[in-house]
């Protein structure tokens, strides 16, 4: 079997007006960033419900980035301040779940900052590569012996039933 190197899967939510354009600019300027990032365009970073982040993690993402306009420059005036507060709330909750802090990142990147965004992506991929896979769904996998124990119980009861009948 060929040896495979670990490639982190990172989900990124980018706002339409700044950060997604920054990603576009990075592309048209031929700046390189790793392909580990899966981008989802949203109208505003304020649209990113914490549930989106939790869903990404529960589906197996190794990290999540939220990117938006710089504070004070939001296309919708002040929604990214909401993002900022939500992000702190989310971060402290995820720390409570025992997740490493570097797996979640809030990045401000204006439409002119293709380089900033590309660098942030490179940094995050490096951080997560160092942390290793997260495999969150593996946290709740069934106990390996459970099925056997349940079937044994059923069998044991079936014997009793034979007598009872």
């Amino acid at each position: 079997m060929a040896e495979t190197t670990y490639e982190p899967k990172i989900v990124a939510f980018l706002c339409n007006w700044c950060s997604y354009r920054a990603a576009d600019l990075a592309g048209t300027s031929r700046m390189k960033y790793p392909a580990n990032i899966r981008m989802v365009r949203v109208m505003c970073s304020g649209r990113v419900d914490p549930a989106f982040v939790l869903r990404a993690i529960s589906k197996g993402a190794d990290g999540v980035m939220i990117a938006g306009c710089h504070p004070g420059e939001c296309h919708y005036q002040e929604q990214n301040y909401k993002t900022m507060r939500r992000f702190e709330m989310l971060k402290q909750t995820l720390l409570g779940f025992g997740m490493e802090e570097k797996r979640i990142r809030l990045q401000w990147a204006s439409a002119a900052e293709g380089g900033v965004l590309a660098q942030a992506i490179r940094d995050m991929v490096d951080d997560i590569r160092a942390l290793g896979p997260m495999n969150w769904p593996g946290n709740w996998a069934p106990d390996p012996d459970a099925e056997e124990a349940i079937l044994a119980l059923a069998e044991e009861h079936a014997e009793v039933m034979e007598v009872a009948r």
Partner: protein
Amino acid sequence: MTEKGKLALYWAASCGGCEIAVLGINEKILDVAEAFDIVMWPVAVDAKVKDIEMMDDGSIDVCLFNGAIRTSEQEYMARLMRQKSKVLVAFGSCAVDGGIPALANLSDREAIFETVYGHNPSLDNPEGTRPQTETVTEDGTLHLPIFYNTVRTLAQTVDVDYFLPGCPPEPERIWDAVLAIVKGELPVVGSVIGANTTVCDSCSRTRSEKKISGFKRTWEVIPDPDICLLEQGLVCCGIATRDGCGALCPTVGSPCIGCYGANEGVDDFGARMMSALASVLDSDDPEEIARIIAEGIPDTVGNFYRFSLAGSELRRSALHVSERQPAETV
């Protein structure tokens, strides 16, 4: 006289309050007994597992199943009740979302055993005995169920037809459900029997869209009787919580703790709480925000997932990476 239907109640990982709550419908319990033969009700009826096992599949009309799934024996019973029942109802918050027992998902089996059988102050266990799933004795082998690492909801274990949340469900909601069953007016399979509005909708306190500068713990403040508790800085979960209680707690000055679980359309109770609290907080400085949260909500997970951890997106806290099972295809 038409034949009576068959009703069963079962009790898995829960306190038993749900079984008692059924008696909250008072004398109407006689009407229930008139419509149904009660074939199982651990707190009140002397029925054995054997009696259920001997019944034909699908011969129980309705099973109200309370409690989360924590052991292999509970999973066996969940499967048995599913097999024998036409309609299986997840009854109460533990069955619906994990409830209080699921807060143990912030720990794991080893840590729980270590505390319970190793370090409890009242403990006398010099040999450090731990429960074993198999013990060989002279008279044969004894078995104990497997204690799972992760508490699960009923629906994460077997197919569930209806959900009746609450800790415990209010008598009025139980009666509504009984009536719906008797009249055959049950909603679409998979739905919650109850309200799809929030606790805030029933709360008579005045909201003024006011921002707050910090959160207060309940012991720090005597709340004003007329103003929204959240706007007084208390972490009231009414905004995310399904109604069903008529805002009992906020009405008497105690913040909602979310026992009815997430309202319709809310995927993750905690996520909704995070969003809502972030919206009322009056600060634009990341460091200040972090400080306000750390001081006011020291236990974020406990506050946001008090009754819904097992049913949430993340279900539990992180195990050590090496203990996680290989991921299924995701």
